[in-house]
């Protein structure tokens, strides 16, 4: 048994862990979990645990197929928030019965791109700002949620609840190995933002998946619910997943040239790759019908493919470099929303950037405005067709993942198109 697996076995015994949850995600990034009792942990570590792989296809489920979840012992972590029996979690890779990678596994798709980057001597570091809304659990689910902190009726207790939430969130996140830099109230009422400190893309994707469940658990304990829905309220900002990307070649930050210029020559090519493929990636960075309501409304969410050093409306922001501060040089991708599948997103972001470097893409001039810039897709239908035809997506993720993803997104878009919404009734019912 590997040293990390032995560590897991010993800690489970010493800490009296009763169950270990094996975590993996389906194609849209929803967390799936299998609970293994401590007594069954050793065979799970040595042989994996069988499951019905059609669960990975999300809502476009096909026929049943055998897949094995192989726990990654390095991701073992005792969960701090579970009441009752002590519980731990491990993230899993999905494999076929013969041990080969399962083509529908988002996590391994990311690992493949990380390997490609490593072969080029490049490593990506990702920092992340995640936004979400907190609402009162007891509100009528049939009505639009009322923001906690301008509802009036709640005035005396709301500050206590919200500050209690922030304190617990930071404690729990740090206890599961997710250091945070800041937690603050966002622009919209009831909206919060937590900054996750930069790390490698695989660890960050695991962290975001963990983060979403931690935040939901804490909110539930306080009689609240947390949502990562991209745009829950009319007229208020949506919830983004801003990514701060740094690329290193050995110790050198590629986004910083020696003369202090950013994003640097090769960093510029990486950025050009991101921009060139941004519209094809939109179905992943913004994967829900609702995602496009965040993008359509502006409010600091990008609508066009552009980059800028100043302002906050561009797709990519490049903070101005300072001589001697190579370590802080980075680019900020601002389109993804808080409900993306981070594994697929990071795989495509890195693959697009690498393609820019490998093929020597030229970076377009900086432009804060939208004039002359290509528009991001206006809705999920358009985004899905662009993704379906994307050579980059198929090269990076493989046909199986792409086809399942497209099937999910087409089905969602078709269901939406066939739905009569509040908008239709409010506008047309009496008028027409």
């Amino acid at each position: 048994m590997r040293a990390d697996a032995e560590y897991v076995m010993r800690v489970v015994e010493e800490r009296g862990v009763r169950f270990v949850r094996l975590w993996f995600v389906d194609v849209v990034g929803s967390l799936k979990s299998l609970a293994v009792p401590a007594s069954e942990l050793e065979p799970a570590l040595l042989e994996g645990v069988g499951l019905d792989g059609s669960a990975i296809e999300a809502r476009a489920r096909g026929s049943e197929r055998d897949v094995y979840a192989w726990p990654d012992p390095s991701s073992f972590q005792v969960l701090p928030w579970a009441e009752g029996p002590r519980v731990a979690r491990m993230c899993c890779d999905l494999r076929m019965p013969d041990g080969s990678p399962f083509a529908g596994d988002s996590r391994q798709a990311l690992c493949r791109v990380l390997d490609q980057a490593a072969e080029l001597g490049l490593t990506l570091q990702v920092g992340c700002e995640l936004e979400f809304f907190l609402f009162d659990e007891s509100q009528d689910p049939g009505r639009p949620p009322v923001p906690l902190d301008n509802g009036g009726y709640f005035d005396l207790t709301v500050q206590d609840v919200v500050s209690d939430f922030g304190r617990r969130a930071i404690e729990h996140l740090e206890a599961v190995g997710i250091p945070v830099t800041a937690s603050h109230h966002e622009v919209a009422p009831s909206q919060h933002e937590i900054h996750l400190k930069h790390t490698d893309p695989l660890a960050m994707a695991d962290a975001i998946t963990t983060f979403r469940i931690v935040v939901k658990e804490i909110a539930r304990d306080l009689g609240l619910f947390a949502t990562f829905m991209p745009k829950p309220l009319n007229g208020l900002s949506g919830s983004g997943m801003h990514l701060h990307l740094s690329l290193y070649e050995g110790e050198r930050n590629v986004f910083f040239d020696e003369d202090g210029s950013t994003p640097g020559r090769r960093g510029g090519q990486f950025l050009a790759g991101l921009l060139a493929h941004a519209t094809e990636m939109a179905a992943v960075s913004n994967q829900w019908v609702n995602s496009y309501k965040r993008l359509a409304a502006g409010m600091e969410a990008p609508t066009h493919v552009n980059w800028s050093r100043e302002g906050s409306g561009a797709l990519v922001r490049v903070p101005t470099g300072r001589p001697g501060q190579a370590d802080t040089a980075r680019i900020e991708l601002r389109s993804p929303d808080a409900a993306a599948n981070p594994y697929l997103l990071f795989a495509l972001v890195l693959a697009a950037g690498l393609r820019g470097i490998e093929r020597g893409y030229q970076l377009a001039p900086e432009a804060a405005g939208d004039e002359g810039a290509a528009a991001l897709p206006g809705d999920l239908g358009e985004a899905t067709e662009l993704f379906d035809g994307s050579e980059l997506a198929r090269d990076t993720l493989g046909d199986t993942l792409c086809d399942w993803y497209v099937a999910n997104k087409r089905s969602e878009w078709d269901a939406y198109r066939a739905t009569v919404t509040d908008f239709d009734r409010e506008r047309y019912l009496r008028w027409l």
Partner: protein
Amino acid sequence: MADAWIYSREPTRGSQMAASVAELGFTPRLIEANGSLRPDDADGAARRPPDLAVVIGDEEICGRLRDDAVFADVPILLSVRPEDLDGEVPMSEELLVPPFTPAELEVRIGRARRQLGGAEEAQTVRVGSLVVDLATYQVTVGGEPIDFAFKEYELLRFLVTHPGRVFSREALLNRVWGYDYYGGARTVDVHVRRLRAKLGAEHANRIRTVRGVGYRFDR
């Protein structure tokens, strides 16, 4: 089989020392002090650090072994001739002054091993309210258990068993990860942040950032 690497510029003294350590059950390897700390033909057996390093009269080699994290757990003996004992001998190394008996050599090796911190024998490291149990992997602060992921624990274990020494990020990556992980040397920074966050205010500052060099654990 325990390996002993012997660093010598003088082949005769090197061979004599090889014979002496062989009597104690070590497999000796002579390394010409030509700049490399490792045997030239670094085959599979030699890639692993040795169980003992004996340096004949060359203090500079001692210093380099001390600075190389690969040798962090290797007891080091410095052999110095009586006529070279001039007050400039480094105080940090266990000294061996010929002539010596096999029994004395064995005692000196035992003392050099204990100088590494003695933690391996004690199985528990205590630093204020921080307790790291090396046998059970359990870490507590003020009696409260703290749960670490495997590499976080391995990094903490390495740092607390090598207090007061500065390790570069590459050295820590090499020692704790043993291969080039996705995150490169920045993985070390990330794990140090996680350790500090989990250890809490009282102990976070014990993991000192030595600017431009790396990290040091202060007891």
